[in-house]
């Protein structure tokens, strides 16, 4: 497998020969990811496509330090992270990684601004003290300045995902991981949300990795990969139906 080169000058995240397997019945191992090589540059936008059950979410969990690889090496901002403690992973996640989920995963009962300031509860010093101001500013930036006191059940799907994006970006992370960010939205709203996500991560200099089965969403990225049967393949001519099926090489 050829190692895809990052387009950006500086590497933010690198995976070398990463695999992930889980034990199943009869002491057997199920390999979900096999020999993954990936380098992501600072500020780069990567799109990863793949059908259901190909290991997309497992890969995202590993990229987001929510899960650890079974084998292989992994670095984040120059720091080996494949075997770090859960507390260290939590610290890196809190400071440098933002998540956007398919189902938005907003905290129920909290207003938009409370949701956006939630990650800042784990910050310290001035960042913690100014959390409300930062959250409001981020919501303004995403065009939700008039919705800051609205609770999730009073927001449309697109608005909820914008709140989720604001929450992912409020601590100015180095990496944003988006798991099917348009999966729960209609086509037009999904396109608008992706434009916002792409634009705002570019503006803030954060790298964006989008995992999706939506080819249009994947093609907004500067580089695309397809994930098939646990293996990651670069897609050189844009994501296509063949790439989604894992037939593109």
């Amino acid at each position, binding site marked *: 497998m050829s190692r895809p080169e990052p387009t950006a000058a500086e590497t933010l995240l690198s995976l070398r020969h990463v695999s992930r397997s889980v034990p199943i019945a009869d002491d057997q191992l199920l390999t979900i990811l096999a020999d993954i090589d990936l380098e992501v540059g600072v500020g780069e936008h990567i799109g990863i496509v793949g059908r259901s059950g190909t290991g997309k*979410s497992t890969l995202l*969990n590993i990229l*987001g330090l*929510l*899960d650890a690889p079974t084998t292989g090496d992994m670095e984040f901002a120059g720091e080996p992270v494949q075997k770090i403690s*859960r*507390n260290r992973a*939590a*610290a*890196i*996640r*809190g*400071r440098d990684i933002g*998540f956007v*989920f398919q189902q938005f*995963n907003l*905290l*129920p*009962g*909290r207003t938009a601004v*409370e949701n956006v300031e*939630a*990650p800042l*509860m*784990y*910050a*310290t*010093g001035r960042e*913690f003290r100014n959390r409300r101001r930062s959250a409001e500013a981020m919501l303004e930036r995403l065009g939700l300045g008039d919705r800051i006191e609205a609770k999730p059940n009073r927001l449309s799907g697109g608005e909820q995902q914008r709140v989720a994006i604001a929450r992912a970006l409020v601590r100015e992370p180095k990496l944003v991981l988006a798991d099917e960010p348009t999966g729960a939205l209609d086509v037009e709203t999904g396109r608008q949300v992706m434009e916002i996500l792409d634009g705002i991560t570019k503006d803030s200099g954060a790298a964006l990795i989008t995992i999706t089965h939506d080819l249009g969403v994947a093609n907004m990225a500067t580089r695309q990969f397809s994930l098939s049967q646990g293996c990651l393949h670069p897609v050189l001519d844009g994501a296509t139906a063949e790439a989604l099926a894992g037939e593109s090489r």
Partner: protein
Amino acid sequence: MITGFAASIVEAWQELRVHKVRVLMSLIGVGVAVCALTLVVGFGNMMQKGLADSYEQQGGRAATYTLSLNPTESEMGESEVEKVRSALDETADRFGISHISAYGQAETTVPGPAGTVSASMYIVDPDFDVMRRLSVDHGRWFTAGDAANLSPAVVADETFLSEYGIDPTSLPATIELSGSPKKTATVIGSVPSSEFQEYGEIYVLNGQEKQFAADAYAVTEFEMWVPPEVGEELSKQVTSDLRRQLPGFDVSADRTDFASDIDETLGPVKNVLLVISILILFMGMLGLLNISLVTIQQRIREIGIRRSFGATSRRIFFSVMMESVVATTIAGAVGVLIAVLVLKAPLVSEFMFDGASTPQVPISAAIVGMLVSVGAGALAGSVPAVVATRVRIIDAIRA
């Protein structure tokens, strides 16, 4: 560290605000339990204080020793009285005893405007009011200078004053004494009447008793109020010293206050009430724990989301526990407030103490109530907090 603590409080408060109905329902049990516990502690302390006041009025404060000084071969004449007084003064100075008083009793009658008024007469010294917790409602208690008054000073209870026809608010007042030639005394103060006294009571200074009752014997018993921790040893030394000074006297000292009876009287009642309160508290905690455990299962996704923000296991544990602590603290404060209002209610005072004594609501009851609230919250919160830390982040986010 401070930021983490502050953030946990903020998170806990948000959680309580969002789920106020659930929280309210789960906390009713805790609030009731804390209220009950505070009531028991409060009632117990108030009853103890009320009983202590009553016992101290009857038998003196802890520790009161009664010194019996009886001449072995003669009556208690004037020279003996003088010897005793001098010996007691010297002993009190030597051992630093600040409160010492004669204590004698006799029956007397005085001719009142509407007929003879009978009274129990107590022969005392000026320290007696402090030693027996006597509170003067009107006028004043004795001073050392009253011994020199030609018209002897009297402090009378309300019953005596009522029978004699004196309005306590108009004190001082003159009363006529029995005997010839005609003599008078001055009532300088009034004290509340004892509950079960048949007659009125008057207090007169030691040495002036014969002016009120010609057949009254000179006082041979004296009370001294000393620190309980040194009382026994001190009483032995005082006895020894008085024997040295008073040859020909039979000298003895016995502890005569009722302090040790209070625990015997109230101990079992307090213990039973305390056990009942702890059981109520335990049930309240179980209810809270039950609801918290169910709730935490419903909040797994939220916990997963927070972990994705960078929340550590420790932080999740602390936040979930703080939710419980903040909630029970609020419930406890409400419970304590209700308990204090109940304890201060005039109806309760009337029922508990017959309105005669109204001890203050003890601050210790409120402190115990609040500490128990915080402790119950921490205990009931720690189990769901442990469950929350064991949630797998990936499963939680997808829950």
